[in-house]
């Protein structure tokens, strides 16, 4: 099964100036969490596509999913551009 590159994850984490050292295991943990996050976001978006009888998941559909759940408020700025 495909996994996210841990070196890249670590780099993204450390792009935040406040973030200092990161333990070796930590990007692995973050990668796993990211995987689960993606499963939810992707599945729900696909559901919207199915409901609309489309074979393509559009950015609008992603936006709809994000706006439908408080848990994903942190993504609103990103989808606002869609």
């Amino acid at each position, binding site marked *: 099964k*495909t996994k996210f590159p841990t070196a890249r994850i670590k780099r993204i984490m450390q*792009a*935040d100036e*406040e973030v200092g050292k990161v333990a070796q295991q930590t990007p692995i943990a973050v990668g*796993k*969490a990211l995987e689960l996050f993606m499963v939810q976001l992707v599945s729900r978006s696909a559901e919207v596509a199915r409901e609309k009888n489309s074979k*393509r998941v559009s950015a609008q559909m992603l936006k709809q999913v994000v706006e439908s759940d408080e848990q994903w408020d942190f993504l609103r700025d*990103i989808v606002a551009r*869609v």
Partner: protein
Amino acid sequence: MSDHEFGGNDDLSLPKATVQKIVSEILPSSAGIAFSKEARDVLIECCVEFITLVSSEANDISEKDSKKTIACDHITKALDRLGFGEYVPAVMEAAAEHKEVQKGREKKANKFEQSGMTLEELERLQQEQFAAAAARHT
């Protein structure tokens, strides 16, 4: 607040091909549903934002813990606080598995130390093995 451009800088983004692969692993091929390019790019931005969110929270937690290094514990606490507590069991399992793999790797690296031979002895052994191999090939 970070200022990400649409499409993102490669270094602070995730590889498109990897994300695409993961998306197809999540979606059943029977449904024939695919992500548009734009949707995939937005998805990548969301992923990066997720990492940033969790890191920031975990960083705060590690500071309050008087630790200079962000550890797995801080990540799981952060996930809990951010409303992603359901991810914690799987995350802990992944970290534990990785620890086991790491231990195995370190064991191999220590083979030299554990061989009980000095560097000279090992070099001599190597020379003998080279000579024997050369002899086999003439």
